[in-house]
């Protein structure tokens, strides 16, 4: 497979923090044409059956745009939960729960990554203590071997050899987890995607910082 020169672009991003009045933290993130709303409640009461004596329970609910939640939503919930169980300082709030609710508003590729980024922004808005920040980037390998970053104008998750999502942590950009959602990729393709995504995750982390600086700009 030919591996083309790896330069491409990330789509435009926009985020609104703290729009909802009920949740403790909320974020509405638009990446390209994919849009996701995330809300966080916590630390709050937890059901006895779900409580842990030494840490907080992270509950994730991912709701699709149309219809009732399906298997893929459950899969995303599991992934998000495992990511944020490592990222948040759950030991600070035993026997309580941190609820993360994600609502898909528009899906034009890269929904998983956008959900993870929106959840991270919502946790930042709610000021929940975290060990590190996470940023997710999706890469798509087309049939001709070229690699694209999703979401992208004019490109969806169809017609691809494989799609892989990497989740990175700051500041060393080490991989927290990776998830191949479609197809299979060779090791070489996977490494190419990894290097591309590592470059791209910088933009996401800088975007988080900008969002928060805007939010705190009014507080002196």
């Amino acid at each position, binding site marked *: 497979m030919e*591996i*083309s*020169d*790896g*330069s*491409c*672009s*990330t*789509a*435009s*991003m*926009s*985020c*609104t*923090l*703290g*729009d*909802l*009045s*009920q*949740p403790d933290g*909320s974020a*509405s993130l*638009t990446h390209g*044409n994919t*849009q996701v*709303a995330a*809300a966080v*409640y916590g630390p709050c009461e937890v059901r006895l059956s779900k409580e842990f004596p030494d840490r907080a329970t992270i509950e994730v*609910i991912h*709701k699709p*745009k*149309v*219809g009732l939640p399906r298997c893929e939503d459950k899969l995303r919930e599991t992934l998000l939960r495992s990511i944020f169980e490592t990222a948040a*300082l759950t*030991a*600070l709030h035993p026997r309580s729960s941190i*609820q993360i*609710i994600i*609502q898909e*508003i*528009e899906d034009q590729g890269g929904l998983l990554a956008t959900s993870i980024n929106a959840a991270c922004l919502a946790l930042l808005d709610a000021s929940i*203590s975290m060990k590190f920040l996470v940023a997710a980037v999706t890469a798509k390998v087309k049939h001709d071997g070229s690699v694209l*970053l999703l979401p992208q104008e004019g490109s969806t998750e169809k017609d691809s050899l494989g799609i892989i999502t990497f989740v990175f942590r700051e500041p060393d950009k080490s991989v927290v987890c990776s998830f191949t959602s479609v197809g299979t990729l060779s*090791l*070489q393709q996977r*490494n*190419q995607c990894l*290097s*591309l995504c*590592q*470059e*791209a995750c910088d*933009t996401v982390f800088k*975007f988080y910082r*900008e*969002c928060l600086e*805007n*939010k705190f700009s*009014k507080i002196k």
Partner: protein
Amino acid sequence: MRDTPLSNCEREFLLDIIKERKVSCEVTLPKLRRPTEGILFVNVELSPMASASFEQGRLTEEGVELSRLLERCLKESHCVDLESLCIIAGAKVWSIRVDIHILNHDGNMLDCSSIAAISALAHFRRPDVTVKGEEVTIHTSEERDPIPLSLHHMPLCVSFAFFHQGKYLLVDPGELEERVMDGKMVIGMNKHREICMLQITGQMLLLKEQVLRCSNIAVVKVMEMTELIQEALLNDKSSRAKGLKCGFAESATKRKVNRTWKEAMDVNSVPGCEVPSDSDSESDEDVESKISERGDVNVLGHGVGAIGKSAVSKWFEENTDDMEKELEEERNKSVHTNSSQQEKAMTAVMPADISGDHEGDSEEEAIQILDKDLKLQPM
């Protein structure tokens, strides 16, 4: 009867109770009793995002009431022409599904949901269909333009809250007001002044004049809201015609303090860059040695590995002299690692007693006192 000033908050509740609704369609069998009519299904999801008291999946009394009222308002008023949804009588019809997700609950979810549902139905376009005898061809949106639904009229709901046994009336109650109200009246009406739905709940009795007065107020409100919806639909149509971006992504107002926007950016990656830890040709031993090079995995034997530096075991109290020496050495080398592991296992921040500092800056909720060379005292 006196009423408090009408809280004229269309704009407020459109901002406070941000909603989201989706319409989708599929071809199904028609209902047996109505073989020439399509099916309209309304689903209201009280998302846990809207309020901490809503639970995923479990439909509370409030949720049931909301979806039932909305169904009555939309279905029984026959606002959508169901006959036009028929493809082959008795065999194939369109089934339209309206999903309403509530994002934030600040009172009066019903009014907002009805506006959202009607706007969605008016905005929706279904695929075009050609029928040749028994053969049905559904055209994709690339082949033929999709067709809008035929809406006879737009019924919208207006809620009124009553206090003090009907003495005081509030239009469009907020969340706090809903919690203290005695009773509620909902009027579903369209702009032709036709009442499509009327419901009174709560423990109170109303006079005829009150009901008439409320319906007059409802007329005014419905006119305004219908105008708003028509305007929004026109705007969307014109921006689609111009080829501008439209959809939820563009609906948020651009100039707000809590909104951040970033342009598309180029990302350059070094071509052909190999991540060093993986390589194609590996034997099992190579894999193991490579992994142990990364420092965190110790291979103890065939098929057995340990991850992380092990700490001093605290289970055993009898140590031989040798073991003690080893333990001593380990302790000296890795005193920081041990203490940090302990710290991680226990608390990250220890509350300390602060006296006499509450009235003024009580910003310091938890304080950790450290020595300058930052060694934690063994606990």
